[in-house]
């Protein structure tokens, strides 16, 4: 469905992507993992047309979209839930959602209404705060709104950049459940996440980025079992507990 071939993207004199190739098949959830500054968000921005690659090719449903403008790419059927939510703070929840439908061609009122109901069904809190302005929502509600807005576009492919950022654990679990449900209902998903474990638990496959290059790709199950992955991206919890114990030994009074 999405085919990225050897893209290189620069920020001025700094090369952020040094030849990234990846594929997303129809119906998949693909996780894009890696440390800060590895190039995950840059990859997303390059696919959505916010940044233009210096080299490489991006193909969506067999069509070359490499040099298309962001709004045309959105119209072609790729929606994005950007990092840090980026909702419209001065607009109401329902206006935010309706704006998500901008890329659709002459949608019927009934269709829009049905999709809106679907979003409200996924996120009952949004229904409750339908008339509230974007900035009045809490961080978690804003994230829900950003995802809902992405869904309203009726996109075939949804790119999600760090959807769990700044959410309470119970909400993180909720968001991942929703992602899985959206996928089951037919939307293909490319998911960028720091929370590698959670991402791989719902993903089919994963790619790992390091300093602008792909270093590892495998099925989600194999990545979860991979020793390198455990050490660098998954194992925080175990390590942290050790740190705590070390500290308790060092400072028994605390």
């Amino acid at each position, binding site marked *: 469905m999405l085919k990225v071939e050897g893209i290189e993207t620069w920020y001025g004199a*700094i090369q952020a992507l040094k030849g990234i190739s990846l594929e997303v098949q129809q119906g998949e959830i693909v996780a894009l993992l*890696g*440390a*800060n*500054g590895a190039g995950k968000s840059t990859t997303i921005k390059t696919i959505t047309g916010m940044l233009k690659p210096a080299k490489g090719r991006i193909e969506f449903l067999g069509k070359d979209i490499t040099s298309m403008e962001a709004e045309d790419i959105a119209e072609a059927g790729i929606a994005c839930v950007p990092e*840090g939510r980026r909702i419209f703070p001065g607009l109401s929840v329902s206006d935010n959602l309706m704006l998500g439908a901008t890329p659709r061609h002459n949608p019927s009122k009934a269709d829009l209404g049905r999709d809106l109901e679907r979003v409200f069904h996924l996120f009952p809190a949004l229904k409750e705060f339908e008339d509230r302005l974007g900035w*009045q*929502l*809490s*961080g*978690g*509600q804003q994230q829900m709104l950003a995802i809902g807005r992405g869904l309203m576009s009726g996109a075939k492919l949804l790119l999600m950049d*760090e959807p769990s*950022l*700044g*959410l*309470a*654990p*119970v*909400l*993180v*679990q*909720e968001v991942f459940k929703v992602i899985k449900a959206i996928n089951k209902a037919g939307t293909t998903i490319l998911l960028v996440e*720091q*929370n*590698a*474990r*959670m991402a791989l638990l719902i993903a089919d496959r994963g790619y790992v980025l390091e300093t602008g290059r792909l270093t590892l790709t495998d099925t989600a199950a194999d990545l979860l079992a991979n020793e390198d992955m455990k050490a*660098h*991206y*998954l*194992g*925080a*919890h175990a*390590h*942290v*507990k050790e*740190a*705590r114990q070390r*500290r308790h030994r060092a400072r028994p009074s*605390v």
Partner: protein
Amino acid sequence: MNPRTAKPLLLVALALAVLVFPWMVSSSYWLNMVNLAIGFSVACLGLNIVLGYTGQLSLAQAAFWGVGAYTSAILTTRLGMPVWGGMVAAFVVAGLFGVLLGIPTLKLTGHYLAMTTIGFGIILQLILINAIWLTNGSDGIPKIPSPSIGSLELKDPSTFFYIAAFSLVLLTWASIRLKDSRVGRAFMAIRENEMAAETTGVDSTYYKVMAFALSAAYGGFGGWLFAHSGSHYISPDTFSFDQSVVLLAMAVLGGNGSATGSVVGAVLLTMAPEVLRFLKDSYMMVYAAGIVAVMIFLPGGIASLVRTLPVSQRLREWWHTGSKAAQQVEIATDVTARARPQPAVLPVGAGSTGTLLTVKGLAKYFGGLKAVDGVDMEVRRGEIQALIGPNGSGKTTILNMLSGLYVPTTGDIVLDGTPITGQKPHVITSHGVARTFQNIRLFSALTVLDNVMIGQHSRSTTGLVPSIFQPASQQAEEAAMRKKALDMLDFVGLRGKEFAEAKSLPYGRQRVLELARALVSDPKLLLLDEPAAGLNAAETEALLDLLFQIQDQGITILLVEHDMSLVMNVSDHITVLNFGKKIAEGAAEEIEKNQEVIDAYLGTEVGNA
């Protein structure tokens, strides 16, 4: 050549150039134009302080220019005051008018501020027109005297040029010096992020008024240069809103934030119409089209173009080699190469127990929304305490009240015996509270080093005048601040990045820089709003070690965080909020098992979240 020896030589060359200039340009018409351009340049230097440094849009600069011109003209023609006295008066009176404009506009930003400054400018012009008893109305004031040195009257444009050029060099020098000082950094901090500037200890009210006053004083000085040269006649229509717009165009075209840039812009825009006059009827159109073209192709102005040229970068490096700051950075780097200094561990002595922060009945209502609804809480000295709860439960609102960004609806906050309820953020910072933000708020366009230097604002004292003249005491304070900043960057692992722009750092490093900026203010209490958000497992682990090291220095931490792998492991004590109310409190082990907390917040997959 070594810059140490080259700098005096350059100064001599500049003086010579100024000296011979009037002989090179023999036409008195062109010399008058040059003097006029210098008057504009000085006004633009002022505009650059308020707009370029401090980020406040002012469209009243021509009015201050007029206040300066009229002050001196009235005093010298009516009261027979010497022209030099008029100069001082122009500077001071315009500065006072700047304060007058500064105070009511403090709460305003963006287009609201611009509107107010336009109104202010128009009012001043109307006063000039209508207060005939004082200003002679629209007839203007003719026969304004020239300044004299001894018996020599500087009447013709070539001699006045020396005065003008000398003041321009001096005022440009002052404004460049100011940029790289404690006061200049405070200005730029306000421009970059006013809220962060406040919580970092910068009294934005004070510095904004100061910037407006200084800007107006420069404007007044420009007016003095204008009144006592050229036609020696002034009238109100010169000091119009249009002229303010032209001054703004000069400052922006030259390069917003660059003192030399604004001078270049002023000279260019004063001279260009004269040079273009051969185009007859269409010359103003060409002139306007030129401005539009520059703004489209050089949005950062001429200064930004010059700045990015490789040759000017090399020049700048050469200029700074051997400067005190560069030496200090180098020496510190050497030391790091040899042995990484361990941060001093503060003695955890008698004063280290008991309560540092007491919060009683704290509440914040936004209209009908009770964001925080009567929370009691204590933070014990030397501990790491976590504040957790669902999104929207009021955690950040509490941090905002503790750091002074919100005034509580009711309730009391006592820090170390001092009530700090409802105090301004910079006051609270000076009492020993520092914080970081959920969505990082750095001074993005400033260097890493400057960010951490601004962090010490509340622990330093250099004021406006020493910031410009930089006496030994200022230099000593500056060096001490720089050393502390470098040590701090070392501590958090950001050494080697001193001169990188803050926004060029990757996300995770930006979080660390924000932490360094907070720590360097010597806080008793450090408030962290989701420090692990966006960090991966390895970075979170590094953060955890850093938090323990900070605790070892005797700093108490109050942490808002959703990453339970961090919270459950660093916290000595956890407070849980839901719907603005406290629902649980205790050690990590108790909280993990609390059914109400699990239902509202943790969910069922704590172990592998």
